[in-house]
């Protein structure tokens, strides 16, 4: 036990962990060139163990591509660093006033690492597109995709059943009490492309015959997942719907068929609907949504440029927040460095549509967002305190004839 404690509190361990962190960060940064920031975060930082492979794009890749370096991942290093920090602190420092600064610094750093874990666990990022003059009450995920079934029968509201795409394994059957039918996945591609069979003779057709798939000229093939432009992937799938009174056929679903991407020649077969037990259900594949209990309405989007140039000077979304439950209906300005914080979410001005006709807000949920602020404040205060105390001690020693100590 004592040996273990000595190990975990040693300075050598600190330096080793810091050095390993640097190696991890460097290799992860280099890998962002081929996997993009989001994927690298999962592979290197939000994991216990990471593996670095010699990138294909580097010279002599065919010789070196078998090089694989295993590394402790972000979670493992972060965890060990916290343990090391706390152990070392308790071992080397007594709770005396002149070490108060150091205690605060170490405490703040530990809190910072903890906030990293908290972010990894809690943080979720979404986006919200608003057309000028339009409104929205939902936020969409950048990466997750849902297969949705919507029952529009009720005149007052819709019934939406969302199945995450992780459930869409080929051959798997899905059933749910809310659905009077079962769903079987025939095929699912995380990224795909469409083609016209008339222009690609010999290419296979769709394994589907309903809705959009009635167009026999349409074909679908898988495409390798694009990690760098990871928001431009088009997931698609073929699903079979079986109701108790008979099958409803096989349907093509794709994010290409929802929202703004619809090719005009397919629009006539959309939305894709079928009827079971007198209810008409719509089926679609779309980005994962979270519905909010309020609306944001975009009044205007301002995109100021420096006169005579295309260089942006400022972006601003002038919106109204409309919450019928609380009766709120107030104007809100969202612009650079000035987000809207409401209902546990923070809305940031992120992007805009062509001709300034639409504004995109990035929406973040992170209940721990204040942790880094606290930790920075604590460390800052600790640094100032430590500097002050060291200065006082140094001045006292200068005035006395004894030799100065060399500790920090």
């Amino acid at each position, binding site marked *: 036990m004592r040996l273990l404690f000595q190990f975990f509190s040693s300075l*050598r361990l600190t330096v080793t962990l810091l*050095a390993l962190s640097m190696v991890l960060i460097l290799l992860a940064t280099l890998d*962002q060139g081929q996997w*993009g920031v989001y994927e690298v975060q999962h592979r290197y930082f939000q994991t216990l163990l990471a593996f670095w492979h010699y990138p294909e794009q580097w010279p002599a890749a065919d010789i070196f591509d078998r090089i694989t370096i295993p590394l402790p991942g972000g979670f493992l290093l972060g965890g060990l660093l916290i343990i090391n920090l706390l152990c070392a602190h308790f071992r080397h420092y007594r709770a005396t006033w002149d070490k108060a600064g150091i205690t605060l610094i170490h405490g703040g750093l530990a809190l910072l690492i903890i906030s990293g874990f908290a972010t990894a666990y809690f943080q979720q990022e979404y986006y919200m597109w608003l057309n000028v003059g339009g409104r929205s009450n939902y936020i969409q995920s950048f990466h997750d995709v849902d297969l949705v079934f919507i029952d529009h029968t009720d005149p007052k509201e819709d019934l939406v059943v969302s199945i995450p795409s992780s459930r869409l394994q080929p051959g798997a059957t899905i059933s749910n009490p809310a659905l009077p039918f079962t769903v079987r996945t025939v095929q699912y591609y995380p990224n795909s492309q469409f083609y016209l069979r008339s222009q690609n003779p010999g290419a296979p057709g769709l394994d589907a015959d309903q809705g959009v798939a009635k167009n026999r000229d349409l074909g679908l093939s898988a495409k390798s997942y694009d990690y760098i432009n990871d928001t431009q992937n088009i997931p698609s799938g073929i699903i079979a719907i079986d109701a108790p009174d008979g099958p409803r056929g096989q349907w093509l679903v794709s994010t290409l068929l929802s929202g703004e991407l619809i090719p005009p020649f397919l629009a006539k077969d959309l939305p894709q609907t079928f009827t079971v037990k007198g209810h008409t259900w719509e089926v679609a594949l779309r980005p994962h949504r979270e519905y909010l209990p309020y609306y944001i309405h975009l009044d205007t989007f301002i995109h100021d440029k420096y006169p005579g140039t295309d260089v942006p000077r400022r972006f601003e979304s002038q919106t109204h927040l409309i919450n019928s439950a609380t009766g709120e209906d107030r104007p809100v300005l969202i612009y*650079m460095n000035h987000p809207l914080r409401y209902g546990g979410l923070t809305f*940031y001005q992120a992007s805009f549509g062509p001709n300034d006709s639409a504004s995109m807000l990035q929406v973040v949920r992170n209940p721990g967002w204040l942790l880094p602020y606290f930790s920075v404040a604590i460390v800052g205060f600790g640094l100032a305190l430590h500097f002050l105390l060291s200065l006082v001690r140094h001045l006292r020693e200068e005035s006395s004839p004894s030799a100065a100590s060399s500790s920090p």
Partner: protein
Amino acid sequence: MKHLVSNILILFGLLLLVVGFLPPRATSAYDLAAYGRVPVQFGTRVLPLDSVARNTLRLFSSGTTLTAPSSTDFPDGLHMAAIQWFLELSLRPEVADRFPVFYVDHDELLGLLGEKIHPDPLFSFRDLQPHLDDIAKAAQLADDKKDAGAALNSFDSAVSTLRDNLMLYQRLCISFVPPGGQPVDDWKTWQDSLQPGSIAFTSQQAGRPFDEASLNAFLLQTKRYMQLSTAATVGLIPPLSGNTDTWMNLGEGALAALHSDHLSPVLLDYAGLGAALRHNDAAAFNTAVAALHQDLGPAATSSHIRFEAFINQVEPFFWGSLLYVFAFFCACLSWVTLGPDFRRGAFWMIVFGFALEAFGMFARVYLTGYGIVINLYSSALFVGWVAVLFGLVIELWKKNALGAAMASFIGFTTLAIAHHIPFTGDDLEMPRAVLATNFWLWTHVLCITSGYGAMFAAGFLALGYIIAGTFTARLNSCAAREIGRLVYGITCFATLFSFVGTMLGGIWADQSWGRFWGWDPKENGALLIVLWCAICLHARWGKLCSERTQMALAVFGNVVTTWSWYGTNLLGVGLHSYGFVQGTFVALTAFWATQFIFIALALLPRRYWRSQAALA
């Protein structure tokens, strides 16, 4: 006389300090200085023509004066100030077409022009005119590649840049006076046609009989000026009311006369300047320039404009870097000569250089209205300035030319780096939307760049330790410990600045993008610096390695800092993505190679060090 040599050196330094401030000799009968002080709106801001001239010449030719060897067109060679060349470009473009201003040194691009590589690859517009179509086609291919997301090779970038420069050139040619060489007459024709034309127009619209000839003439000219209003690229006429801050170009000014029934006197003044130039009438030119200043109103008398023209002339960074170069030689000489002369000379030269650099940086703050560091160029200036400050303090304290050598070396290299950063058209350009926030510019940005400066200061002092220890016998244990303590102290500062700066950056990112830390390359680079500082400090505190190894660690700090500052730009990834610059990659790798050599020297067994006896 005591200290004669050092006094001479100090006087020489003083001379270099003030020479930039002396008013220049007038080399021409034309009042070029007055023309240079004329304000226009170009790019992101209002600036004097002298700056437009220098920036454009620099964009085209990579230099701020036009120098060319003797040629058939110019048997005596060429040596013109930027404003002189710009005078011709703006008012007599057909003359300017003969001046060799386009710098082309890419061998494939030269091949497209039918030329081989030669030492002075400057081409005039006239030289390039027969090849405009080929350039346009090749540049279009490069554009298509970029739209498709493919990577561009060096030929693509070179030809795109040349095409962009040529388009800018042509637009500037028609931005000050209407094309054709008879601007005064052109404006008169326009003014004369305004009234009959608008009468004819209203009559036609009302279905009444109208004068067809007047109407046609009027419509045609309107079309001509509408075309000019989209092609012209410089705002000449300041806004009359406070509702807008957009200046009107000459096409817009011409069209504005439709409503106000009179043509802006600014346009007539420019035409008068053009006519005077064509008639070689310097007196008329000077009168017209004075009239132009008057007609521009408060915009022309703004202190910002006059100050910017003044700073252009002073060139503080040029004289500052000269001072640093001389100081470095003096510092090195002081180690082989007797007496404190060269060291004192070096110290004062650095002080003068430091003052000039500070003057230049704060002049930028005054002119832009934003923080000291707002772009990569200003970051290079500030990093150097911080390192020089550390060096000066050390020199004052230790008086052994070490601080002076470090300060002058870093000072000169950062100014040279700043000068060679790819030029984007205006060093004083306004910061973009999210950057235009003074609070973060003054806090986060300054902290991070101060951290860089401190890291370099420590790293170069350590380099001094290694060089002295390996190649000379003079590094005794006392000096070694002293340098070691200096390096440690500066590393503490670097840790503080880098850590605080990184944390502030996280807060800024949280305010802007919703996440404190996104693990993107720039953030990772900053974190690497903080981690490396932590390693250096902990290694020393825990006595985990020898002093020589600590110096090696400090030198590695140079590698980490340059990676964070420049290397991360090369990746083109994430929120902080920038353009790939091939030349930077080569320069970085070369620099890293030199640093690794020094690290290897530091880690050699002690018996190989010439100072090993002194260190024992």
